[in-house]
């Protein structure tokens, strides 16, 4: 095996670790930036092997300028996580082109550490942290390789050294993690990054959706304090859409909407906790109807304040990190049964634009004439959906200029949005205050974690009508067409194909179990590690009996933990670095040497046995023969290839010599 030149070995180690740290960013770095960094790495490695000259300073400055302009052009800023990461990655590539000294390597390693942190700011999954720690190990090994003498490094030694150093630090890291006080708030504002919103949009436009994507991403998880409500009550309200232009439903916001609902006859209440994935939006899903929340609860440190907005709840600002909150709902509550305020009535009875949906108008008039009462009219419309050939599909045909009419009379296929939209329009055309509500319906109960997992694919739209004496009443027209959708709370493929899908999944029950277990693990991770906050610290201090000291409790715990970690490290190092026990040969040799030392013939610290024997022979010719034999036997027993019996022979010789020496 031919050895890699030390300079190349160092570069390989540093480049490899740096590349590993950049890997999680490939998804959002511009392609040209990734290519530039990869190119710089390959070029530098080739330059090292071929002995090419590194580029002159002017060229490097020019490249730095170009990189900065490139990032500015792409992101319109140098600030923020995306642009910052891109810029840093490019600078690492540039730094490579001048990397020679250990210092340059150290800069690259430091950039690598920063890249790991940035990757964790993007995503806080267990896998990300594990990967970041792996990369930290590689980077630290590169650091060790660069800062140790060339001859001290074998290919693997730096890796062992770095693993050792980092692993010994884990207890202290755990202490720091548990007891370093967390911040209630921020030092500086964090610009939102990668604002890709998922799930629910602020408007509904069924006609333009050709295919609904079925994202299995979790939207939120719910822990019920008691038993979970039955599946048909699992309507999580998010937004109310009231403004209809004949095609699109939009959200209307007025200050008056921010008021608690008039709830009467609440019925049994359900307490639960929600852990919401970041949405970049200001709404929080809550089980219909939310009737309250603990005072001063909610997402500590966000400084947020919850408000009711048409019985949906809103935060004061977008949810950019995973948050948890506690709510109380009454699924069977009656809301505003006696009276609908005029402003709401005006909004929810707003006439459809003139000229839109003429056939639907006629249908509404005809059906209402037959029904004569709102309740009966609703029943007729639902019956229409159930008996006429309406079908449920996630890939409906697009609708043209009259989406309501086309859906009701021509295509007759669609998903919840189509039905909710058409139904609500028919209600308004008949003079019944109605609106579209979007949210989530159903969820997968995870028996490992004891929570309900609501995915983006559980997103749903339904309708709400106001009935005299009953108040706001939820009507889910989709249930008339695809009762499965509501009962199972799953967004299936089209209804016909659902049986097949169900059978497939039954066969893969173990797979589903595995998925549930994985999600439970992930959730526990989020619950206990990612969401570890001042409250968790307070609970921990309470468990340790330090809660009565206030903030000093943290300091005490931190100091005690540090002392324990230091003690542990000291004990470990003492054990690890304990002197090797001399073996019998070594011990006998040391005994002989000690006896000679007692007679004024001390062996020098660096004196080999044969040199020592020569010196003894010079100083005490009488001992030359006997001690020469001892030394020769020692050398044979310890250093020469074993042929058998050397150890025993040496021990015998040494014993005899020591006895003779004692006799004088």
């Amino acid at each position: 095996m031919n050895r890699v030149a030390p300079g190349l070995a160092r570069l390989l180690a540093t480049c490899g670790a740096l590349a590993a740290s950049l890997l999680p960013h490939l998804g959002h770095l511009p392609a040209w930036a990734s290519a530039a960094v990869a190119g710089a790495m390959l070029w530098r490695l080739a330059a090292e092997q071929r002995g090419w000259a590194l580029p002159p300073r002017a060229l490097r400055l020019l490249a730095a300028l170009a990189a900065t302009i490139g990032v500015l052009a792409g992101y319109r800023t140098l600030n923020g996580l995306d642009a910052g990461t891109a810029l840093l990655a490019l600078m690492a590539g540039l730094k490579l082109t001048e990397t020679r000294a250990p210092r340059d390597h150290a800069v690259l390693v430091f950039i690598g550490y920063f890249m790991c942190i940035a990757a964790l700011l993007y995503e806080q999954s267990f896998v990300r942290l594990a990967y970041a720690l792996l990369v930290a190990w590689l980077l630290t090994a590169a650091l060790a390789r660069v800062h140790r003498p060339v001859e001290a490094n074998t290919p693997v030694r730096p890796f062992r050294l770095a693993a050792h150093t980092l692993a010994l630090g884990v207890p202290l890291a755990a202490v720091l993690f548990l007891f370093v006080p967390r911040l209630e708030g921020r030092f500086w504002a964090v610009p939102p990054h990668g604002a890709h919103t998922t799930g629910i949009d602020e408007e509904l436009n069924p006609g333009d959706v050709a295919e609904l994507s079925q994202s299995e991403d979790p939207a939120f998880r719910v822990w019920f304090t008691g038993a979970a409500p039955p599946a048909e009550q699992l309507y999580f309200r998010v937004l109310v859409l009231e403004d209809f232009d004949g095609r699109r439903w939009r959200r209307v916001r007025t200050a008056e909407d921010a008021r608690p609902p008039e709830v009467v006859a609440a019925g049994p209440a359900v307490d639960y906790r929600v852990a919401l994935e970041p949405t970049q939006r200001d709404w929080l899903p809550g089980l219909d109807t939310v009737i309250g929340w603990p005072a001063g609860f909610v997402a500590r440190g966000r400084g947020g304040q919850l408000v009711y907005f048409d019985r949906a709840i809103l935060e004061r600002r977008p949810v950019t990190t995973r948050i948890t909150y506690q709510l109380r709902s009454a699924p069977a509550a009656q809301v505003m049964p006696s009276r609908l305020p005029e402003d709401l009535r005006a909004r929810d009875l707003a006439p459809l634009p003139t000229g839109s949906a003429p056939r639907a108008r006629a249908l509404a008039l005809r059906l209402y004439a037959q029904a004569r009462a709102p309740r009966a009219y609703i029943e007729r419309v639902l019956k229409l959906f159930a008996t006429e050939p309406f079908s449920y599909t996630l890939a409906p045909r697009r609708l043209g200029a009259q989406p309501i009419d086309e859906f009701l009379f021509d295509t007759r296929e669609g998903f919840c949005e189509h039905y909710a939209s058409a139904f609500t329009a028919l209600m308004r055309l008949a003079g019944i205050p109605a609106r579209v509500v979007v949210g989530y319906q159903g969820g997968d109960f995870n028996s490992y974690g004891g929570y309900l997992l609501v995915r983006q694919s559980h997103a749903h739209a339904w309708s709400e009508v106001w009935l005299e004496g009953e108040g706001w009443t939820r009507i889910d027209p989709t249930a008339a067409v695809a009762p499965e959708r509501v009962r199972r709370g799953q967004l299936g493929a089209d209804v016909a194909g659902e049986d097949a899908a169900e059978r497939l999944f039954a066969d893969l029950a173990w797979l589903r179990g595995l998925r549930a277990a994985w999600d439970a693990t992930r959730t526990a991770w989020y619950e206990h590690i990612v969401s570890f906050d001042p409250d968790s610290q307070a609970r921990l201090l309470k468990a340790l009996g330090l809660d009565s000291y206030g903030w000093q409790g943290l300091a005490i715990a931190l100091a005690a933990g540090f002392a324990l970690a230091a003690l542990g490290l000291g004990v470990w190092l003492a054990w690890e670095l304990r002197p090797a026990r001399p073996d019998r040969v070594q011990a006998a040799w040391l005994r002989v040497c000690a006896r000679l030392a007692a007679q004024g013939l001390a062996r020098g610290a660096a004196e080999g046995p044969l040199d020592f024997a020569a010196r003894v022979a010079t100083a005490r010719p009488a001992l030359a023969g006997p001690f020469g034999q001892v030394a020769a036997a020692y050398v044979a027993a310890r250093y020469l290839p074993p042929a058998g019996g050397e150890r025993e022979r040496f021990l015998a010789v040494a014993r005899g010599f020591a006895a003779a020496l004692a006799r004088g």
Partner: protein
Amino acid sequence: MRAPGPLRRRWAALRRAASERVVEWSRRRHGPDLGVVTIGRRRVYILPTQLGAGYAALLFAMLLGGLNYGNNLALAFTFVLAAGGWVAMHQCHRNLAGLRLAPAGTRAPYAGDPAEFSFALSSAYARNDLVLSAAGGAAPPASVGAGSATTVSVLAPTTRRGRVPLGRLRIESTFPLGLFRAWTWVHPELECLVYPRPAPRDREGPPPAIEAGSAHDGRARGEEDFAGLRAFRDGDPPRRIAWKAWARGGELVVKQFVGAARAPVVLYLADAPGRDLEARLARLARWVVDAEERGDRYGVRLEARETGPGTGLAHRNRCLAQLATYKLAAGA
């Protein structure tokens, strides 16, 4: 290169003075280090290197970022790195504490060449990347295996014959990551002889005694002719001992050579021409070296003191040592 400004010069002088004071303080604290020194943990000093300071700044930035984003994983990552740095500090300190250092002889140079002070570093457990340095320069980094010893040589510059002291010795290491530098000062109070540098060979003739007395029989390098073995006698030079024969379990025997017996030559200082004592000693040193190279039996006489006659490197060194210490001015 630009000459350093006065401010910079003064700053450098200030730093030098401060460092001298610290060294003096440490010397008072530990006393002179005679014989074998064990580096106690109380005399191992440790400070972060520039890299270590950079690392700390990096961690601080990461901590602020993690706290600001309320990102627990970023914090956990930062804490793992911080704890790693802390462990590295302990490892760096442990790498020196308890190390044993024993003087392992000196090798006398000719004046102008560096004197070599050897030390045996030994340890019960493995030590890494130890750098020994003295005023004259640093030895390449050395490592010590568990339970074994390594010899490291430090060079000290010399200018003239006599004795050159080894000032303080500095042992340092940045093991394992280069984030910290642990070091200690040792004051071994060692001296090394410095032989006079032999005068150039071709300027003056050979010493008259050799010209007159020696009858070259064509065997200038008598040691090359092996004549046989005889039993070891006290005073035989160790390098003549037949170690191979002895290691096979036999007696101590000495190799004998023909041509070693020749009419002895005595080299007198008085024979060296010139007035300058140093120049004459240098001439004498040249004669000694040449006589040894030829394999003559020779001796040196300086006024009343005489060495020899004899032969062999040990004898040559005895003669050169006599030259080195002759009429040494105080403090040389």
